[in-house]
């Protein structure tokens, strides 16, 4: 039986969800990644879904399969229209139902009943349209298959069938009505229409012959909605007097079908926005040629990789200038140490590593052409912060305190991202502390990215992988933003930049001799 498009079972659905922003969001710029989604989908409560990482591979796979199937743009359009319609209908019906339950003739009148008929009609149209379109669709994802079956059963039910046929009959009858109003001296009189001539067509016929070309359209966009509902309701009452049978039928319809909408379908229309919003977000990046994939979920950290990945928050800002990067950890490797010149893309690389893990735990597709990622229990980050003068703690102390907390929380199943730590101390202190930290990381065995200016740490041991931001030989000032596996080499950049300005030893020697 189908219950939710986000969770395979009702029990999983009922598990508590996070409502606060996870702490790693700021460091990994995930707040920037999700902001456009929350902004575009204000009507839907998506925040807890994106705030709650899963470590249940059954649920993640359930979502990945659905997300994958929804890569089809037409299918997404279908669900997007459906979701928006059902949402609107539900909103209006909620307020309408309370109006129609009241004794007040001002709100409980033919206009209210007309609106209910209207929404019931839209509801059926929305459901039937989706049903027809889905019937042509072959699904592989379990969640979508189950929803499709649910919908088919619902549509075939007697209750739904009689609802639709009743609406059609009422509409047919109402469309036969054409009446005339004679308005004058504050009074509206109503009779059936009896073929009186249209004034404007006479005028058009008389003057059309002078036409020289296109002319302006002087019609105003006037609302077809009544200005004063009570006058309109009174006029419809007069019309109802002329057509009593049709309007009696409408009254009976309204009491019988007061609650016509289905809860499971409503829930689906809300939940599907999780998938739609994600695809909406990444669609422009995909068309710009950036790859996304569904990572293999790994229970051990023995072989983790991602090829052609990137920092999603950066890509959303500058999709045309994005440089893709790879990482790979093969046992016994656990810790990637990133060194190299500033502004070379080191932090971006660290964020990319953290982001793809977090996103994987949501069940969405992640940056990269191909990936295998860790099914972690906790994602911990430590990014060097702007010095906070309000606290008396020095930066080094602050760094150490945070690092201590982080390492206490971490298990071998955690993911760690540590960026530019110990930048505020002497090199010898930093080396000492960094070395100690590397020892701890080695023992812990959790997959880690560590960005540092200390070359020595990149050679800590067999668990360490050294990566560097790449420097272009021909123009060192031009950054490539590529992070590659390479032994640390802090002098490379300085040499290249000197060459460009003809200030190398050899060059200077020749220039001085000339």
């Amino acid at each position: 039986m189908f219950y939710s498009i986000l969770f395979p079972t009702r029990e999983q659905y009922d598990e508590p969800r996070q409502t606060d922003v996870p702490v790693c969001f700021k460091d990994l710029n995930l707040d920037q990644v999700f902001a456009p989604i929350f902004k575009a989908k204000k009507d839907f409560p998506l925040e807890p879904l994106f705030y709650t990482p899963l470590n249940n591979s059954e649920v993640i796979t359930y979502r990945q399969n659905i997300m994958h199937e929804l890569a089809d743009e037409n299918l997404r359009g279908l669900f997007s229209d459906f979701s928006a319609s059902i949402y609107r209908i539900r909103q209006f019906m909620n307020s309408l139902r309370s109006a129609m339950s009241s004794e007040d003739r001002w709100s409980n009148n033919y206009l209210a009943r007309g609106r209910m008929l209207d929404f019931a009609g839209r509801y059926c149209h929305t459901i039937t349209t989706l049903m027809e379109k889905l019937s042509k669709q072959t699904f592989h994802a379990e969640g979508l298959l189950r929803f499709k079956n649910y919908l088919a059963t619902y549509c075939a039910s007697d209750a739904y069938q009689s609802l639709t046929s009743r609406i059609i009959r009422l509409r047919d009858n109402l469309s036969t009505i054409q009446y005339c109003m004679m308005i004058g001296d504050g009074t509206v009189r109503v009779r059936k229409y009896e073929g009186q001539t249209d004034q404007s067509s006479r005028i058009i016929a008389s003057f059309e012959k002078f036409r020289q070309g296109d002319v302006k359209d002087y019609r105003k966009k006037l609302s077809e909605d009544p200005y004063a509902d009570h006058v309109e309701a009174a006029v419809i009452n007069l019309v109802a007097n002329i057509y009593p049978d049709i309007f009696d039928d409408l009254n009976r319809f309204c009491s019988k079908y007061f609650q016509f909408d289905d809860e499971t379908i409503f829930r689906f229309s809300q939940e599907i926005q999780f998938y739609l919003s994600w695809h909406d977000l990444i669609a422009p990046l995909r068309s710009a040629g950036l790859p996304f994939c569904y990572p293999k979920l790994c229970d051990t950290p023995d072989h983790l990789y991602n090829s052609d990945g990137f920092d999603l928050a950066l890509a959303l800002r500058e999709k045309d200038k994005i440089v893709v990067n790879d990482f790979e950890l093969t046992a016994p490797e656990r810790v990637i140490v990133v060194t190299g010149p500033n502004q070379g893309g080191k932090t971006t690389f660290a964020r990319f590593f953290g982001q793809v893990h977090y996103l994987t735990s949501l069940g969405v597709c992640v940056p990269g052409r191909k990936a295998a990622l860790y099914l972690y229990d906790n994602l911990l980050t430590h990014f060097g912060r702007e010095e906070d003068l309000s606290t008396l703690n020095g930066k080094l102390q602050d760094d150490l305190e945070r690092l201590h907390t982080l390492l206490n929380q971490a298990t071998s199943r955690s993911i760690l991202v540590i960026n530019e730590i110990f930048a505020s101390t002497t090199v010898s202190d930093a080396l000492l502390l960094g070395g100690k930290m590397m020892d701890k990381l080695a023992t812990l065995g959790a997959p880690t990215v560590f960005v540092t200016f200390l070359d020595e740490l990149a050679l800590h041991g067999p668990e360490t992988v050294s990566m560097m931001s790449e420097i272009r030989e021909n123009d060192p000032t031009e950054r490539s933003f590529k992070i590659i596996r390479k032994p640390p080499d802090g002098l490379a950049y300085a040499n290249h930049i000197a060459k460009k300005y003809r200030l190398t030893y050899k060059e200077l020697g020749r220039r001085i001799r000339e």
Partner: protein
Amino acid sequence: MKANLMFREKDFDLNAEPRFGQDALIADFELNRVLLSMAREDQMIETVCTVALCCPLRETNEIQYRQENLRDALRNPEAVRRLYEITVDTEKKIKSSMHWLSSIYLSSTFSSAIELLKIYISMLMELRTIADRKISDFQSDGFRTLLTMLQRELSDDYFAEINSQLKELKEGNNTLISATIGNYLQGTHYVLRRRERKDTWWRWQFAPSFTIAPRDDAGAKDLAKRRDRAINEVANALAQAAEHLSGFFDMLRRELAFYVGCLNLSDTLQALEMPICFPDLQPLQSCDRSWQNLYDVSLALMKNSAVVSNNLETTNKSLYIVTGANQGGKSTFLRSIGQAQLMAQCGMFVGAACFAAPLRKEVFSHFKKEEDSSMKSGKLDEELSRMSEIVDHLASDTMILFNESFSSTNEREGSEIFRQITLALIENRIEIFSVTHLYAYATAFLENKQTQFLRAERLDTGERTFQIVPGEPLQTAFGSDLYKKIFEKI
């Protein structure tokens, strides 16, 4: 309803993209003075005549159609001027009526449109009157078709019908509106209906009714909005009708403006006792030209007196090289040819006693720029780039008039550039009139049989006659004359 006085079967289009080189033609041939004289301060005439002059017709029958209409206009100047005046008066009356179609209030658009339509109807009646009175005096297809159409379309019955429609719309406080049921039972598709004979007071008095409460302001406003919705289409129809009529009078004015402009110019030139004639236009392939008393119309208008004219008769020539003394009338001569060609090809008379010339697809001019302070070294660049732009538009059976072109560099260089250009053009059947000082250039064509050499005449006494006569280029320049005249006079 179309007037079709400019073309037998289409409107005269003022909004067409300006032709390439139009501004250069107007400046080089000094057409502004001609246009001013035609317009007599009427902007419409100036605009229409500018477009007409700068878009030469290529079909003999199109030109003949305009010539025939123009001959008729010259025979019936008063009737043509009166028709034009009606179009001008209409515009004035509409402007001074202070009624605007575009209003934020529909009811205002509605009543303004009715008032404007009344003005238009009265002016239509004036047009009918002229048509009735003058149609027998006209012989041309263009004017006869127009006046017949006015009589047919603006019949007494027609005026009776439209007047009664406007009357019906203006009166009555009861509005009859039809409606259908919308998606939530609200009334939609409001249509203002005519009260038919069956819609008696008695019948409606006992229909089911609803009266709004005395202090129900929202209700009262609702009723007003119902009327707005109903008159939306009608107000639109009325406003569009007014716009159709505005367009109709504009169109009529546009089609008549050219003929009134020609009447004005003809009157002025006749007062100066300068001849005008309808040109004899030969097919595109022809390379023969002949004229008598061809003069620079613009110069006559400026001097407000008779001016020097020229005669010529040539056969099978495609290159005319004009050399000779400075201030000997060469530029004037070149302008008179350009003017005559353009005037002829828009169906006008030309400033000559008689004028025969081939049709040309387009006319281009490449005149030396008198002064160009913005450039110092780039003058030849400028000339070449301007030439290159023209070449983008050149084709067989066009003509181009050069005035002192490529003289911004030394003679040998200029001559060689110009010679190559000229040779390429004439071999591609482009007719050239070239006023030049470049002796090497001019003499390079001495053996060319298609070349007609002309020279500013100088009598043996050294005096200029300002006549241009056949004659090959002479090596000596006449600048020394001028030098003497100016420097040694004292």
